[in-house]
């Protein structure tokens, strides 16, 4: 069998390494005895190289392939949000609102400052003057010993502001004592002073371990996820648990919870900047700047 000459298609297939074995042998045999076809082979080799070169010019800038996501075609699976998730969403709303309020410089409740301790000390003097009741002789007598407890009293202020410093031995007396012990502050801190009327609810409550709160309620206490929470109770006999969470400086969310069998806890609504509603057995209270409709929305989500 004699091959006249090979066509370009065969030469390209040969050079591309795509010629079937048998054809390859025949082609090579022909090339061995045909200088013209050998010349054409080199031409085509150059042509292929040139074409590849040109195509390479039209190459996009090298970029890393994004990671393979096998699920990318499928619609995202329906997400089953945990029951409290809406609350977390609402928390960010609250946070934003509180920040806005704070920036206006009209923070109605005590802003949390780095020098909280100093603020507490400064606040003590004006608070004392605000309280028109003169100190009783007994208080005056005890001033000296109680004064030593002043630092712990300052810590108590921290607890009111929402941080988790357990201090179960706080009595109203301590506050009076701190007032006495504090050096007279020439510059009153009105914001801190305002904390006093907002505080009584929390002041009566002692911090308890989370496990204890869980034991009282029989279930995991409700809380906003991903936010530090402090559990409190008013006395060992009381079965109402207060979960306190600070959203932002000046905004504290308090959830009053009690065992399901015992119904909703009845507590007074405090200062005007504090909003409280009931969701089933859950009393939700938000201290700080938050429009009532935002709270309604939050409560709707909790429901």
């Amino acid at each position: 069998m004699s091959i006249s000459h090979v066509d370009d298609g065969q030469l390209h297939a040969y050079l591309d390494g795509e010629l079937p074995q048998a054809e390859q042998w025949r082609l090579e045999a022909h090339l061995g005895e045909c200088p013209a076809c050998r010349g054409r082979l080199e031409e085509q080799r150059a042509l292929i190289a040139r074409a590849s070169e040109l195509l390479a010019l039209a190459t996009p800038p090298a970029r890393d392939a994004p990671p393979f996501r096998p699920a990318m075609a499928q619609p995202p699976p329906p997400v089953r949000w945990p029951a409290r998730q809406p609350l977390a969403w609402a928390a960010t709303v609250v946070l934003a609102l509180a920040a806005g309020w704070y920036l206006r410089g009209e923070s109605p409740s005590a802003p949390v400052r780095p020098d909280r301790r100093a603020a507490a000390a400064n606040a003590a003097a004006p608070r004392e003057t605000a309280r028109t009741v003169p100190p009783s002789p007994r208080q005056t007598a005890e001033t000296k010993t109680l004064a030593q407890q002043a630092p712990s009293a300052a810590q108590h202020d921290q607890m009111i502001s929402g941080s988790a410093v357990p201090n179960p031995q706080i009595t109203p007396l301590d506050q009076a004592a701190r007032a006495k012990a504090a050096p007279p502050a020439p510059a009153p801190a009105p914001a801190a002073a305002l904390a006093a009327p907002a505080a009584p609810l929390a002041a009566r409550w002692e911090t308890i371990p989370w496990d204890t709160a869980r034991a009282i309620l029989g279930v995991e206490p409700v809380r906003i996820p991903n936010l530090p929470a402090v559990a409190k109770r008013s006395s060992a006999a009381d079965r109402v648990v207060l979960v306190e969470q600070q959203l932002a400086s000046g905004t504290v969310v308090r959830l009053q919870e009690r065992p399901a069998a015992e119904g909703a806890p009845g507590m007074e609504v405090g200062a005007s900047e504090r909003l409280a509603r009931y969701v089933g057995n859950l009393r939700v209270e938000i201290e700080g700047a938050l429009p009532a409709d935002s709270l309604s929305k939050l409560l709707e989500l909790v429901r």
Partner: protein
Amino acid sequence: MPEDLAEIYRSTFPALVRFLYRKVWDVERAEDLAQEAFARAVVHKPESARGWLFVVAANMARDDARRAARERRHLTLLKSDPASAPAVDEAVHAETERSRVRTALEQLTPRDREVLLLWDAGLSYDEIATQTGLARGAVGTTLARARRRLVEAFAAGEQDEHIARG
């Protein structure tokens, strides 16, 4: 299958982007289309995924080009030429070369162009034959013609520009 596909993704994604880029001439668009092609592969689980990917991608690029053409028509009146930022010579040169290759590629017949781009994307003659419907023996011939035309068209383009510059 997903694991095979993940492997194909690793080995083929850049080639698929390159392939698509030479159709849509926009890297990000090319990458989007490549992703989309893989997304469809995940759903359809085709027999020979690699070849299938290129065919699907080519179709998507065609649809994309049609849509882009429509949008261009609509936007013609609104269009304002962005002031061309002073670019580095090298980048300008690369861009010029790219557009020359593009012009040259556009002078090929759709079939020749497709076969050339598929080969350049790493598909075998068998895969190209399966995906384009060509006889396997015709792939080499088609490639030979496509390459020659590309090289000639590019050279002709350069020639024209030299003449135009005087």
